[in-house]
């Protein structure tokens, strides 16, 4: 079996790669969003800390 045949999937290429592509996209987006959320809250904590340091 060569790679062209493998990706053709006996004519079901769109359905199969569409499914796995969406799965990959969802996992990717979810991870990026969680990382972004973490970055935001850490930035906010830095800000809060800096403000406190200035005040005290």
């Amino acid at each position, binding site marked *: 079996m060569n790679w062209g045949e*493998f990706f053709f*999937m*006996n*004519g*079901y290429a*769109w*359905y*199969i790669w*569409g*499914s*796995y592509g*969406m*799965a990959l996209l*969802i*996992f990717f987006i*979810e*991870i990026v969003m*969680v*990382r972004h*959320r*973490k970055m935001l*809250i*850490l930035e*906010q*904590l*830095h800000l*809060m*800390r800096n403000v*406190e340091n200035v005040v005290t």
Partner: protein
Amino acid sequence: MAINWFKYSAPSTFYGVAGKMVPWFSWSAAILFVVGLYIGFFVAPTDIQQSEAYRIMFIHVPASILSMFIYLVMAGYAALGLIFNTRLSSMMASALAPTGALLAFLSLWTGALWGKPMWGAWWVWDARLTSELILLFLYLGFIALHASIDDPRRADRASALLAIIGSVNVPIIYFSVQWWNTLHQGATVKFTGTSMHVAMQQGMFTMMLAVWLYAIAVTLLRVRCIILERECKAQWVSELVEVRR
């Protein structure tokens, strides 16, 4: 050995524990994904009736089963949070919801892509597909209710109650949809009558385990964010290495 569970249920302790667990879960999830996809695409033979299209099963079935399972786990955490007033369980419940909703969506998407070549239609009002759609609505309701309440304590408790009502309703909804489906003689989707090949089973279980570990890893990452957001004024947070930097 007696483990003091209450010690780990304090957000400040759990933040560190979760941080140590995340790499383990995510790496084993990644390895299992590779192994599962290898078995699914190279070891498992072509199905006689469905040809190659059945290979969608390796992502569709784990996504469907886990989306339902995560709802129950979420309702369980929500109930714990409501009854014992433990903050961490409520945080876990709200951390699980987005992952569950995304898996429910993935299950519908892959179901549609599997349905098109098999039944000739993107969407069939089959009992299982319909229940999955309603499950997605329940997730969206939980997330929307949690997001629209500003006070975190009220948000936790209100959405916990909603999750419990939802989980009590899920069997009733499933039964009624099944009833409705048989009355209208809708399409019944049965996986190939013959028993599944051993390699197919192995591939599916490996992928299921992989998605499961992935869900745990991403939930732990999210619950860490939630802990920081909620406890941003606490002393221990300002002493964290990543905050001090």
